[in-house]
């Protein structure tokens, strides 16, 4: 068990910067997910920690040792790969014990550890099978057993569930959490699936274009994203984004206005272009506005498409007056809103309704830099208690 520290780690390929000045401080026993879209550098970051790739600059520390220049075998890490990477010419026992045999453990010790590891991942009675005779889930468990048998300081998992079918993936997700609870070892987990990251990790490190955007507990990333990218990436379906500008009275978009006191916000001025973000579950039909502490003024919209999910209905709303806009912002164009409502709501397609937003859940982002300006723009009079700018580390 050990903490893992990355300081100014940069990995440059000929003309591409895969990882750009990454600073991470992962505590002992923590479960951290590196999450981001494909090609964002999260796997490269993990490879630098494993030692499979040498960083161009920066230092990596595991425990108290500077491991930047050590080969993978001397770093005390174990890794589970996306393609599972079991040695096809060895049976399960030989696969699991590979690392121990290389380190010249005696036979009884190897047997004892292999047995324990295969118990943990429920592989009893399969030790003499060859990998090709096993199902995907079983192979994945062998790969995990191979990692835990060495009792490493740090587990590295590079999208270990990506090649499994959806049902098995959810099951293995729970297994991994249980495993973490049982072993209490530091786990660094790479995934592009934000749901996986949200459900499993102690902290999420959101990475985009090789740069760390935010590293915080899942709910902080969800409720107080440091910038527009994190806001759009975390949460499914993703956050609504509407472009607007600051006026003396609040935020004005092409279709609606939100009242707030701009002076309560730091660093922005009247006339600045901003992006207003609101999650689908914080958009309500006007009828339920009374239940909200800080509803905004009603916004006239027309309903477009309904997506009943069973426990809720997603309603696509077209904003009146907004020009048709084909530029995609995340998953949606910025002239529409997505609202999630109760499944028993009385809403029809192509209908005219009015909706309100929960002002305490509105996020404002600088339109140019994408940095968060405020989370929750409660009306002028209210103290700006929860509108503090989340200035967490690495926010640029």
């Amino acid at each position, binding site marked *: 068990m050990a903490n893992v520290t990355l300081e100014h780690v940069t990995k440059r390929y000929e003309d591409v910067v895969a990882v750009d000045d990454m600073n991470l401080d992962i505590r002992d026993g923590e479960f951290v997910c590196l999450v981001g879209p494909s090609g964002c550098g999260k796997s490269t970051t993990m490879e630098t920690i494993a*030692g499979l790739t040498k960083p161009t600059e920066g230092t990596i520390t595991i425990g108290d040792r500077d491991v930047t220049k050590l080969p993978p075998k001397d770093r005390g890490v174990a890794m589970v790969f996306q393609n599972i*990477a079991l040695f096809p*010419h060895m049976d399960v026992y030989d696969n699991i014990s590979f*690392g121990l045999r*290389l*380190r010249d453990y005696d036979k009884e010790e190897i047997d004892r550890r292999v047995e324990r590891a295969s118990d943990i991942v429920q592989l009893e009675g399969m030790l003499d099978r060859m990998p090709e005779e096993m199902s995907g889930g079983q192979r994945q468990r062998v790969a995990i057993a191979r990692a835990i048998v060495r009792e490493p300081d740090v587990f590295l998992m590079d999208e270990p569930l990506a090649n499994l079918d959806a049902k098995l993936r959810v099951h293995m997700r729970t297994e991994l959490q249980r495993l973490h609870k049982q072993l209490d070892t530091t786990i660094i987990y790479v995934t592009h699936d934000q749901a996986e990251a949200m459900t499993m990790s102690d902290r999420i490190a959101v990475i985009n274009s090789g740069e760390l955007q935010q590293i915080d507990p899942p709910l902080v990333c969800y409720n107080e994203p440091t910038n527009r990218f994190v806001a759009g990436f975390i949460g499914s379906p993703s956050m609504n984004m509407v472009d607007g500008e600051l006026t003396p009275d609040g935020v004005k978009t092409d279709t609606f206005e939100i009242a707030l006191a701009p002076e309560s916000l730091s660093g922005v001025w009247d006339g600045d272009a901003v992006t207003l973000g609101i999650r689908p579950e914080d958009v309500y039909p006007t009828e339920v506005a009374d239940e909200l502490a800080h509803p905004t003024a009603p916004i006239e919209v027309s309903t477009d498409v309904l997506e009943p999910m069973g426990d809720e209905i997603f309603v696509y709303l077209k904003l009146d007056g907004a020009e048709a806009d084909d530029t995609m912002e995340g998953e949606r164009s910025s002239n529409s809103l997505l609202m999630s409502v109760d499944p028993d709501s009385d809403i029809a397609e192509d209908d005219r309704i009015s909706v309100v937003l929960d002002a305490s859940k509105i996020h404002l982002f600088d339109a140019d830099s994408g940095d968060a300006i405020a989370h929750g723009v409660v009306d002028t009079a209210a103290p700006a208690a929860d509108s503090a700018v989340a200035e967490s580390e690495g926010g640029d």
Partner: protein
Amino acid sequence: MATDPDSESNLGPLSRWTNRIITDQDARDRLYRGLFYAITVFFLVTTLFPFYWLLVLALTPNSEILSGGWDLPFLRPQGFNPAAFQEVFQQIPFHLYVLNSFILATLTTIIVLIIASLAGYVFGRLEFPGRGLLMLGILMISYFPPAAFLLPLFDAFVGNPIVAPFINVELFTPPRLVNTPGAMVLPFSALFLPLSIFILTTFYAQIPDGLEDAARVEGTTRLGALFRVIIPLSAPGVATAAVLTFISVYNEYFFSSIMSLQNEPQEWSPLVGGILSYQTQYTTEFNLMAAAAVIGVLPVVILVIIAQEKIVSGLTAGALKE
């Protein structure tokens, strides 16, 4: 298709037969089977007849061979003289010639496999500038006729000092290697390396990166991953490279006949040299040469039978994707 019964009667026998092949599945199967056997027999005869002929020559006394009284068309031994297989060893120490070739082939194969494995790993699995150029260089060298190297190598191996061309500066004096295995194993290794490098490069390149990464994280060095994971998984390729190299060196005569100054087993004269020493200025003992050839082939036959399964999958492996 001309299946009309009216026109059927107008057709000749060949056309009727062709029609039946086209329309009748059973007839088609019979034709394919017939063709298969015909072609198989053709290849078996062309490959096995030389061996049969060697055996016939070995069993026929030399005087009968020279008188040429073969009863055509079926060539069979004229007389029965298995003592030739014994005489082979009595006239000269033929077993020492076989041993020489065997040792030379084994040494060369080991050297080639080690160097070609390292080269194959580098060319197959690492990205570096100039890789294509280096591969091209190896390919070019493999196209040189081996005879082109003979004179300079002989000059060096007899122990003459190496002189830089044009400026006539003496560089160094190499050890005298003629009549030792070194004079043969060195050029053989160099000549047969390119082929093995190409075979192993393609095999090693096919091993997924993840497996090597896994081995390295588990505790091997890059070299350890090569020997513990990549080579075992490329066994067919390694076997193919090994057998091709072994057979080539085992059968080699040109270099070794020159590098062993006298045709003596003590001077590392090879198998073929042994076979040729049944030929003297005045007599040629064809039956002994044939018997010696049969004996000399045996080690290779045994080797190929052992490695056969792996070689076949090795030669075809590149064509299939798993």
